[in-house]
């Protein structure tokens, strides 16, 4: 990548010598131009990654990313930062593993430390249902040459010594599964790294610009958008707005088969290192990791009953999650939770994402990314391919919207709640 300020050990020492007064902003804050080849609405991980790959892989540099608030301020800043690829279907496994592979090379590629820590994710399994589910994933993944293996109860305890002793368990541990390459990454760094990378290719990142209307020509094709910072002309409009996808699509009278549900997460007070893996327990609906700051980052199950856009949590889910956590780790019972937040997950009907052109010419959608943090690199790469060439990337060929009318569902399930 070209950047007027590459980061290295030498620039760091140089900065220290000059009392860190030499650093320039990592991306510009430009005025919107009158016209762009592609306008991407939504400055989260997916939107910025799409802009980056449009410029890098397809040579389309006249691109704007339009963000209503500030970049990375939506779900890119509200997730629990877990990356993994242990999915159910062939297409999902290959797609998410490509994403993981891209994450593995991303710090070097973007010249920006994304703090990827491949500490492995261990699933602690307490019922035959989740044993069967994970074994199915393992067989599917191994068939595709991707590492994911089952563990015996002893191996689970070896990896997570702080687990409750056997005699205190309501449900005994039947086994486990592990993906060694899974882990966590710094979520803000992904957003900022892609923003800096895209900016260095000449992409304009336009913040505080809310899309209020979409103009269309006589043939129905997109011609321009109206934003709170003026009109921007474009023939290719791509949306990656997370929870707002349905609302933005309604501006072109398009209805997307999406539903938003609440998910919440918590952070404990900082403690000494106790966990060096990401732990997930589908049977108790809880997953957690130990952050570099020493806080336990704890996530619960989705409240997949009620449509919700609330950026907060709910007490019944908090209670469920904490009781599950304490069943696995009774020693955490005196731990204090410092912060708690929630957000909306966007689901398509079959649980797989939508990376698709639409019946409106020049209008592209990247949506349904519940658990979309781990998908950012591959999501951006395949969406950019679709926008640039008007044909789906082979990895995301099944993610078109036509699957809902041809009934070619890609039923996909989470790992925090068993789905079988």
């Amino acid at each position, binding site marked *: 990548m070209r950047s007027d300020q590459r980061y290295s050990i030498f620039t760091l020492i140089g900065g220290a010598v000059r009392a860190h007064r030499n650093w320039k902003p990592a991306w510009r804050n430009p005025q919107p131009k009158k016209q762009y080849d592609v306008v991407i609405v939504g400055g989260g991980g997916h939107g910025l990654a799409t802009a980056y790959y449009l410029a890098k892989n397809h040579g389309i540099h006249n691109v704007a990313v339009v963000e209503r608030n500030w970049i990375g301020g939506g779900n890119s800043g509200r997730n629990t930062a877990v990356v993994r690829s242990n999915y159910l279907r062939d297409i999902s496994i290959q797609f998410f593993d490509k994403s993981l592979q891209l994450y593995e090379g991303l710090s070097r590629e973007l010249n920006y430390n994304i703090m990827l820590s491949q500490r492995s994710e261990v699933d602690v399994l307490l019922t035959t249902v989740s044993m069967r589910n994970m074994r199915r994933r393992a067989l599917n993944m191994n068939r595709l040459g991707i590492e994911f293996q089952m563990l015996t109860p002893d191996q689970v305890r070896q990896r997570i010594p702080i687990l409750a002793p056997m005699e205190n368990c309501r449900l005994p541990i039947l086994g486990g599964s592990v993906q060694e390459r899974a882990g966590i990454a710094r979520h803000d760094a992904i957003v900022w790294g892609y923003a800096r990378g895209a900016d260095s290719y000449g992409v304009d990142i336009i913040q505080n610009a809310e899309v209020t209307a979409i103009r269309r020509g006589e043939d129905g094709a997109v011609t321009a958008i109206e934003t709170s910072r003026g009109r921007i002309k474009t023939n290719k409009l791509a949306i990656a707005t997370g929870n707002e996808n*349905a609302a933005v699509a309604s501006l072109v009278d398009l209805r997307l088969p999406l539903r*938003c549900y609440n998910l919440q997460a918590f952070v404990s007070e900082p403690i000494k290192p106790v966990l060096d893996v990401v732990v997930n327990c589908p049977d108790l609906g809880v997953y957690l990791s130990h952050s570099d700051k020493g806080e336990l980052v704890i996530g619960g199950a989705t409240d997949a*009953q*009620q*449509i*919700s856009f609330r950026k907060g949590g*709910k007490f*019944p889910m908090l209670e469920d999650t904490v009781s599950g956590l304490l069943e696995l780790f009774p020693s955490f019972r005196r731990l204090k939770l410092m912060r708690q937040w929630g957000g909306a997950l966007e689901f398509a*009907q079959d649980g797989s994402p939508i990376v698709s052109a639409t019946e409106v010419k020049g209008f592209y959608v990247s949506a349904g990314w519940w658990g979309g943090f781990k998908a950012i690199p591959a999501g951006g790469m395949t969406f950019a391919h679709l926008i640039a060439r008007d044909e789906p990337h082979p990895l995301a060929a099944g993610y078109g919207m036509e699957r*809902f009318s041809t009934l070619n569902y890609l039923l996909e399930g989470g790992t925090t709640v068993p789905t079988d």
Partner: protein
Amino acid sequence: MLLIHCPWCGLRAETEFRCAGPVKPPRSEFIDKSDEAWLEYLYQADNRRGILEEYWCHEKGCGEWFKLRRDTATHEIMDGDTDS
């Protein structure tokens, strides 16, 4: 904890209830029309910020179904209604 007013049992904890999603016109209005109408019935939900009318069931109580209005941005619940 949200308290929900069941039309039969009065104010009860949210955990006793199950939400079955936004109210739609009856299935008979979709099923015999066209494939598109049927797909619309299957997939489309009123997925938006604001007040939605929803079906709820007092699953762990009296078991009755009723409609209520709820704000999806705040989870605030308006009065329920019983004609369902």
